[in-house]
């Protein structure tokens, strides 16, 4: 395009000035010996680079933060659902792990006392009556349970079978007012019944004021109630108070078994004596997998109803077992081996039906 004549000199002037400025830029060095022309070139190009980078970043941000996230809500909902399911699954697994631990404890206890016939049962319900401390267990007369059989956990005495139904039984806990167990003090061996109070704590009665009892002392079964074998843990002395109006001490006992959180229990099918003092350590933490094969069960005896800890209620659905000397041994279901952690499986092998020799 031709330049108008009136602007020709001005154009020439601008060109001359620009050429000389360029000439200067080629010579002058700035800063760290960088030629000015290079500084100008970089500074003139860098805004373009910055603009391009800004545009690319903006486009990328737009893509990453908006367009690529168009399915995020669905994914978020899906992940939330998945998290909720996993949490539930985790809770189930934790519960199963805890259950496995408890069952391992039961199995270890059973293995440590293989001479005693026991049947594991799951607690399936509690008594709707708050005044009575009872639970329902998943074993009944079809499993060989009879009234007044002792119910324990590896920690200690729980109570006794109060009523028996075909597939379930009702257990009267130690804390019930009607409940009781023949007991003795671990140190002095002084004997007296432990009775329920309707409260979480028990009471040890008929211990003379002259007997020295200290808090923390262990209380064991005496075996005289003909329900529990001797030397089963009942609880520990919590508080001792002399009674000025009575020749006996007032002793509060904390139950050895956790009666407020029972989930699995053992029903004693016989009154075979436990050797807790010798096997106290063996009864704890015996691995399930290494459980020894069950020994041939000793002849079992049914609990005699002669000295029940509580008076039998007339509403009991099953009659109290008759003190027949030839009563059959409990017949646990042989559906599962002893080493399986299923709570429904009997811990003991089916015992031979030998006649009882009281």
């Amino acid at each position: 395009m031709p330049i108008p004549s009136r602007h020709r000199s001005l154009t020439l002037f601008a060109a001359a000035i620009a050429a000389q400025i360029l000439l200067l830029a080629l010579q002058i060095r700035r800063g760290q010996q960088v030629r000015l022309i290079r500084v100008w070139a970089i500074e003139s190009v860098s805004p373009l680079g910055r603009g391009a980078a800004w545009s690319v970043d903006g486009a990328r941000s737009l893509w990453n933060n908006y367009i690529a996230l168009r399915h995020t809500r669905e994914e978020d909902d899906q992940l939330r659902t998945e998290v909720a399911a996993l949490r539930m699954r985790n809770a189930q697994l934790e519960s199963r792990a805890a259950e496995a631990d408890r069952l391992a404890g039961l199995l270890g206890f059973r293995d440590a006392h293989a001479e005693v016939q026991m049947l594991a049962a799951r607690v399936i319900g509690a008594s709707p009556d708050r005044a009575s401390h009872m639970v329902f267990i998943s074993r009944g007369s079809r499993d060989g349970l009879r009234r007044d059989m002792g119910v324990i956990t590896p920690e200690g005495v729980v109570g006794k079978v109060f009523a028996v139904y075909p597939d379930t039984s009702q257990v009267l806990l130690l804390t019930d007012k009607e409940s009781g167990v023949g007991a003795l003090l671990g140190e002095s061996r002084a004997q007296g019944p432990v009775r329920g109070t309707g409260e979480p704590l028990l009471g040890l009665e008929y211990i003379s004021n002259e007997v020295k009892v200290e808090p923390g002392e262990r209380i064991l079964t005496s075996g005289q109630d003909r329900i529990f074998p001797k030397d089963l843990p009942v609880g520990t002395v919590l508080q001792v108070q002399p009674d000025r109006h009575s020749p006996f001490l007032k002793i509060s006992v904390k139950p050895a078994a956790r009666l407020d959180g029972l989930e699995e229990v053992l029903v004693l099918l016989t009154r075979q004596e436990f050797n807790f003092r010798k096997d106290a350590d063996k009864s704890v933490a015996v691995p399930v997998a290494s459980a020894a094969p069950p020994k041939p069960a000793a002849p079992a005896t049914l609990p005699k109803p002669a000295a029940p800890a509580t008076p039998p209620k007339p509403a009991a659905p099953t009659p109290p077992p008759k003190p027949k000397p030839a009563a059959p041994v409990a017949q646990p279901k042989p559906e599962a081996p002893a080493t399986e952690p299923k709570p429904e499986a009997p811990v003991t092998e089916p015992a031979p039906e030998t006649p009882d020799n009281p």
Partner: protein
Amino acid sequence: MEIHTQYDQYIEVHKYYAGTIVWVAILALALEALLPVYFRSAAILELPLLVTIYFGLSWRNPSSGLLLGMAIGLAQDSLGHTPFGMYGIAKTAVGFVASSFGSRIDVEHPISRFLLTFAFFHVHNAVLVVTNRLLLGQHEPYLEANLIIASVVNSAVAVLLYALLDKLRKPS
């Protein structure tokens, strides 16, 4: 060398003998380099600038004026230690402006020559300072007492020099 411009029909354009401008420019540059050696005070003179102003005002053609200013400025740069183009830019600007002014006002009167030279001297210095600041990053002052004295001295010398150079014109 004879130069004709579009303004010939309106304003008198002075013509010079061939080689006059070249020799005058070379002489100015040589004196600029040699005089301070013998007379230290002669360093205050800016003979190449005065020559540029004179021929710019006489020719009254901006294109020729800026080219002459650029040539003299670059030659001055080549003789000095300044970056090549510093004086070139300044004298290009002065040559362009002087040619533009010369075509519009009377530049024959000594007073107007004195004032114009005084003004162009400061324009020249201002362009130098701006170029120094912008390109070299040096912070030189725009105005100093020495600069005022130098501008006055150069303007006074210019009146005499221009009268002398007027003798080199071709008779009209």
